């Protein structure tokens, strides 16, 4: 049976890493991620894992070392936040195009500037077109579960893409909650032996990784990469199914919460989903048909599935914890509204940008969103697309 423990999000992910026993971990400290790798380095020092730990001199080096190790055929991991992810940028794209199944926990933090250490999603949203699978977590349990699942997804031969598993900085990473972890043997079995495709260390079959690839073949390789992302959706669902058999905890591309008969619905990612569920429960008691769609997998983006899940709703609010500065909306809204295009008598859909730089989001804020939605549903139209929630202006 699984083991009940009290852990912070960072501790939970460090524990997952200990159980997954990666061959190589390379990392650099950055708030609020630091603890994950720091705790893990303790496991290395105490001989609980035989991981090669490389404490590099920057995140650019962390991702480079991880890519090098993965190309050699190792299971390689790193973790980061915000500016650390930004500094990795060049190699983040390279990891994906080299088709290296690296799993990277990212503890969401506002990307500078102005400099800030608290949660928003601007860091990982910026990397949404980097070719990485992106899985968001609502709490420490999900961060743990998603990390274990990410490895199986990434390493699937039909996928071979790196995966980011995110959790909200401080809100999840530093808050302790009761959760369940698996026994070490079960995780060992779950992750299995990694058999890399074309590893550099297979000296009998020498390969070149990362050579110049111009207009003669580059486009075919990018097309293959895009196809891998398409294929990953089925793999994510299959892995979730297997994980449910192992743990009883069931995951999908997103979670539908009281959505079936909902007239108004909120789409949200990360820890705010927990707050929103409280509000949905309250509204339901008051007879309001409120529902919630918690997006778990942002890359690949489950457009058709979202459209099917939301098409009956009268009004939808997307909650974006980052801005895309496209002068229209946040990034999640753009994708969700695009997914809804073509749906017969599509619901009205609006965007709320909230929680920037760690700005607190309370049930009152979310209640206001549902109130607005009730109004929009009654009138059949919205006056404006975008509202900044809880801002002084």
């Amino acid at each position, binding site marked *: 049976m699984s083991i009940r423990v009290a852990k912070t999000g960072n501790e939970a992910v460090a524990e997952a890493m200990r159980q997954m026993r990666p061959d190589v971990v390379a990392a650099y400290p*950055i*708030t609020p991620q630091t603890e994950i790798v*720091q705790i893990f*380095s303790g496991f290395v020092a105490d001989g609980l894992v035989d991981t090669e*730990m490389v*404490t590099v*001199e920057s995140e650019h080096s962390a991702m480079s070392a991880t890519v090098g190790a993965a190309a050699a055929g190792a299971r390689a991991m790193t973790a980061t936040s915000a*500016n650390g992810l930004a500094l990795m940028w060049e190699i983040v794209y390279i990891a994906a195009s080299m088709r290296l199944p690296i799993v990277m926990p990212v503890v969401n933090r506002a990307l*500078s500037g102005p400099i800030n250490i608290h949660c928003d999603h601007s860091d990982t949203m910026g990397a949404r077109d980097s070719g990485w699978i992106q899985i968001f977590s609502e709490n420490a349990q999900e961060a743990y579960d998603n990390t274990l699942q990410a490895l199986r997804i990434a390493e699937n031969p039909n996928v071979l893409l790196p995966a980011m598993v995110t959790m909200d900085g401080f809100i999840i990473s530093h808050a302790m909650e009761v959760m369940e972890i698996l026994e070490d043997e079960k995780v060992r079995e779950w992750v299995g032996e990694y058999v890399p495709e074309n590893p550099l260390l297979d000296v009998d079959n020498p390969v070149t990784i990362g050579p110049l690839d111009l207009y003669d073949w580059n486009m075919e390789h990018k097309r293959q990469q895009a196809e891998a992302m398409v294929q990953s959706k089925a793999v994510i669902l299959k892995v979730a199914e297997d994980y449910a058999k192992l743990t009883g905890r069931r995951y999908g591309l997103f979670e539908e919460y009281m959505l079936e008969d909902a007239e108004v619905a909120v789409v949200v990612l990360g820890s705010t989903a927990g707050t929103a569920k409280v509000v949905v429960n309250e509204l339901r008691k008051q007879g309001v048909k409120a529902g919630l769609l918690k997006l778990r997998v942002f890359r690949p983006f489950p457009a058709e599935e979202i459209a099917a899940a939301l098409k009956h709703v009268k009004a939808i609010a997307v909650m974006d914890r980052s801005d895309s500065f496209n002068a229209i909306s946040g990034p999640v809204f753009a994708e969700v509204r695009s997914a809804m295009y073509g749906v017969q008598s599509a619901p009205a859909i609006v965007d709320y940008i909230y929680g920037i730089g760690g700005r607190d989001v309370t049930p009152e804020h979310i209640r206001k969103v549902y109130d607005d939605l009730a109004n929009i549903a009654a009138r059949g139209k919205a006056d404006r697309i975008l509202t900044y929630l809880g801002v002084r202006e």
Partner: protein
Amino acid sequence: MANKFEEYLRPQFMPHIWCPGCGHGITLNALLRTIAKLELDKDKVCVVSGIGCASRAPGYLDFNTLHTTHGRAIPFATGIKLAKPELEVIVVTGDGDGAAIGGNHLIHAARRNIGLTVVMFNNSIYGMTSGQYSPMTPSGKSATTAPYGNIERDFDVCKLVQASGANYVARATVAQPRQLSTYIERAINTKGFAFVEAQGMCPTYYGRRNKLGGPVEMLDVLKKNTVTVQAAAKLSPEELKGKIITGELYQANDPEYCDLYDNLIKQAQEVAGK
């Protein structure tokens, strides 16, 4: 002098983030004392920092200040100096910020010999992220990422900067605030790249982790372990093991980068007949 200090601070941003007993206050004090002594025009001073405990300093200072990204204070400062060579550009950095993630910029700024003053607040650890070992954590010392001791060698950052081409290199500890102040003064007065390593102390992470006692004991250790560069010349490598060599380690008078740049412009204009 006391009033002068107040004029240099932004009390609205106090209290500062540094822990009780942190050595950074002494180094900052030495820097401010120097600026007061030199009677620099507040508006002609620009203090630039990266990320880390030391790099918070400019937030508390009422000069032109720029708090940049991790490791990149020197490139930002290079841009400022080139655009406004008349400014006194002072970089405040730490051992992690300046010798790890920003190490490349440090050696190239020294190589160009651009007229910056870099004060490295060396607390021997990544303090802000709670005590991981840095490239300047002495070998064998403990850190959160090295619970059984650091097996890596630490940088002699002064040798590195000297070898890279700086015009002035000095080191003092926070147990010698007057020397520190003197060296910062000479660094500011140096034409070309000037570097002062301020060996500080982090009682919270480095000290506690390595059982070095409180701030007072750590200051004592700094005093006992310090050898002047003149005395060091007469000691064997064995005798110098674990010692901190302080003093003015190198001085040169090589041409400064902004001057070379201006000369080039003049030459080009002459060739073009303008």
